[in-house]
């Protein structure tokens, strides 16, 4: 009886199982490009306005963070807040790589609102993570 029950339930269980999203070139390329250049994951999928708005928001936020003398975190294995700061920063992709290459965000802080700059840099990276996830959802057809 147990077998018959199992047999009866098997097709229903298979139907209920969510199907894996299709792996396409775009589903890999869009998040990768989107991480490297904020908003580009949308642009290569011809979501021009969304891509440009995302790019403008994230790049402006990152640049403002640098202009406010925000701190750019280095890869580190020390304090948990420093590690999380690095994880946030690295979300900005190419912007973070450029900042590291140019040694930006390492100077001495000379005014009180510089901490806002650090937060701007981290949040720009975190917002880019959301943007990358959105580009992926568009690529797999989950979002129009």
């Amino acid at each position, binding site marked *: 009886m147990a077998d018959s029950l199992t047999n009866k339930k098997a097709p229903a269980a298979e139907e209920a199982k969510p199907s894996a999203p299709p792996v396409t070139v775009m589903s890999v390329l869009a998040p990768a490009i989107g991480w490297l250049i904020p908003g580009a994951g949308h642009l290569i999928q011809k979501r021009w306005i*969304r891509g440009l*708005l*995302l790019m*403008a*928001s*994230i790049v*402006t*936020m990152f640049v*403002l963070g640098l*202009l*406010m*003398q925000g701190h750019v975190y280095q890869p580190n294995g020390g304090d948990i807040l420093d590690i999380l700061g690095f994880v946030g920063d690295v979300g900005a992709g190419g912007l973070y790589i450029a900042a590291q290459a140019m040694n930006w965000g390492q100077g001495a802080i*000379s*005014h009180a*609102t510089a901490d*806002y*700059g650090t*937060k*701007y840099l981290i*949040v*720009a990276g975190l*917002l880019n993570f*959301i*943007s990358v*996830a*959105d580009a992926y959802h568009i690529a797999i057809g989950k*979002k*129009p």
Partner: protein
Amino acid sequence: MILAPSHFTAALLFSLFASVVFGITQRSTSREQIRYGLYCFAMFAGGVFLAGWVMWILRR
């Protein structure tokens, strides 16, 4: 070049950029995206004012 905005300006700029990204990524249609973006901005800006008044009350 060094930028040193006031706390209020920095908070409003933060709200603006975060709201744009939230609006675009968290909703599907253009209309919903605009509405949600505006909602997020209003919540951020309202939160700034509320926190400001709470700090003012605590300080007195």
